[in-house]
């Protein structure tokens, strides 16, 4: 127990170092760009950028006449206070606020979709391995291969065109109806759900097969373990063996991959959010690039890094909880 706590703390320390490296890179990169990025931007935005926006931009990059180390400390101080400057595209909203709003939608949509796909995929994979050569094991892999052979955005666009546009079963874009007032009303929640179903579905359809294959392959190995045969000889029920012997053990190597997938939700949902015009972080990232909103881009990269590190740490915690040998 104590050993596990130490290990988790050490991992946390490791992730903290990685986060610090990302922060520093975020500080260094703009300064390595030729010239002053703010001035360069100013040239491009000539006439469009108000002097206040220009100042905000400079402040974001911490471009003052102070020595570099003071700029760096100032930058770290701002980040620690959650101050990542002001977005240009959404001027004068602070970057963190813009990202926070997008993050909420992304986690609700893509986060849920990734978890559902993982749970579904690992469940199906364990069952396919259990009945090797059975119906599920026979049709699962070819369907997976088929689904993963065409690009995701094609699947997403096809479903928008057919299911939303042609058949009108689902709304075409946005996170909720434009005539609905946001709040904890039944109408709003229903609208959000009906808008999320199709994009979530395309993500689940696209990624479940991968989890299924991975889980199936590990499970086939687990089935060959002595403890499975011994459990059978002990007269345990098939269900008990499948869940507590095969799945419980076979899921362990898949946890790291799950952590990665969860972390990349923040950026990985880009295609989904673009196709469905869903106001999450992926969509924001595209907006930021399009409008050369450097503060927003920087903030998003930071958020993505932190999300990946955080999700990996959660996977570490899950491993410690599920595998007593790591304690």
């Amino acid at each position: 127990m104590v050993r596990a706590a130490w290990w988790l703390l050490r991992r946390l320390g490791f992730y903290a170092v990685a986060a610090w490296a990302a922060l520093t890179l975020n500080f260094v990169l703009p300064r390595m760009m030729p010239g002053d990025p703010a001035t360069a931007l100013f040239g491009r935005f000539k006439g469009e950028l108000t002097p206040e926006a220009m100042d905000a931009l400079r402040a974001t990059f911490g471009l003052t006449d102070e020595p570099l180390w003071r700029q760096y400390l100032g930058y770290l101080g701002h980040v620690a206070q959650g101050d990542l400057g002001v977005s240009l595209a959404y001027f004068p909203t602070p970057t963190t606020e813009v990202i926070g709003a997008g993050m909420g939608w992304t986690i609700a949509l893509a986060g849920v979709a990734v978890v559902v796909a993982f749970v579904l995929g690992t469940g199906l994979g364990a069952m396919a391995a259990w009945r090797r050569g059975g119906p599920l094991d026979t049709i699962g892999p070819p369907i997976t291969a088929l689904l993963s052979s065409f690009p995701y955005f094609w699947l997403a666009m096809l479903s928008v065109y057919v299911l939303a546009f042609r058949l009108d079963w689902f709304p075409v874009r946005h996170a909720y109806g434009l005539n609905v007032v946001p709040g904890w009303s039944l109408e709003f929640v229903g609208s959000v759900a009906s808008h999320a179903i199709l994009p979530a579905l395309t993500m689940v359809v696209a990624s479940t097969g991968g989890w299924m294959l991975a889980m199936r392959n590990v499970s086939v190995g687990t089935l060959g373990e002595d403890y499975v045969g011994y459990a059978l000889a002990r007269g345990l029920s098939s269900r008990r063996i499948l869940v507590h012997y095969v799945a419980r053990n076979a899921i362990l190597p898949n946890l790291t991959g799950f952590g990665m997938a969860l972390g990349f939700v923040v950026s990985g949902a880009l295609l989904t959010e673009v196709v469905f015009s869903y106001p999450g972080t992926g969509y924001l990232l595209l907006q930021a690039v399009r409008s050369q909103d450097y503060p927003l881009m920087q903030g998003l990269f930071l958020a993505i890094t932190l999300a990946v590190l955080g999700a990996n740490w959660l996977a570490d915690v899950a491993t410690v909880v599920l595998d007593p040998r790591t304690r």
Partner: protein
Amino acid sequence: MADVLLTVRGLEVSYLTADGPVRAVEGVSFDLRRGEVLGLVGESGSGKSTLVRGLLRVLEPPGAITGGDVHFDGIDLLAASEDALRALRWRRISIVPQAALNALNPVLTVGAQIVETLDAHGETSPTRARARAAEVLELVGIDPTHLRSYPHELSGGMRQRVALGLALACGADLVVMDEPTTALDVVVEHELLQRVAALQAQRGFAVLFITHDLLLLDALADRVGVLYSGRLVEIGPADVLARGGRHPYTRGLRAAIPPALGEDRVPVALDGSSPNLRSPPSGCRFHPRCAAADAACRVTETTRRELGPGHLVASHEEAP
């Protein structure tokens, strides 16, 4: 014979590999009486584990039973349905595995694994199951606080004792032990064997004890069978085999044992190695390693002859 618990006749178990079947067990026949301890000895790869898995029907593919028949207390094990087998497993036949570390689920506590076993065999009350699980550990001399331990937190000897306790937990009539002491040092091995002998004497279950150590069976077993390359080459009362046995292989095994203190004899190692099962030697499978082999041994199969009460040998040697 009403007191016969297990009857095995002409059992054949093969591994159906891509390059053809490998016959790992062939033509094995023996009886096991209630409350009897039968030892089966053989080198590594002689098919001991395959035999056990075959007769309990827990073979993993590509292993398959390709012939023979097995009756347990009048029930045809090879024809029994999965449900019928599940009813037999553990309540009537249990196993102590070769390596308990691999046989126990690494992510469940020892207690959970005992409780789930009791639960699968009709113990409905969780409180009673936990109390019985504590008794199981006490029976094999392990402190019940270890109910909350995971398998990797126990020593090799403790794990093997947990496995022994598990095998006795549901009062099985037949306990099959597949090299239960192989992974242990001699002191711990001795301790475990004494425990097995004491519990067996006290509870009267039958034991099929698999080992590669002939010496170990002298004290423990009532009868001893010798397995060579998937075949039972000799079986007889333990005291008869303790005096040397008849089959050249049995005697070879005996001669290879280092002499006890004060014994005037030089150990003679058995030359060669056990045959490759993919292309086994013709005739008597032991002939390439047998000092007494002649031309006939190369071509003709051996037949089983009864030399004394319950003493069967399959060799070409003439009776003296």
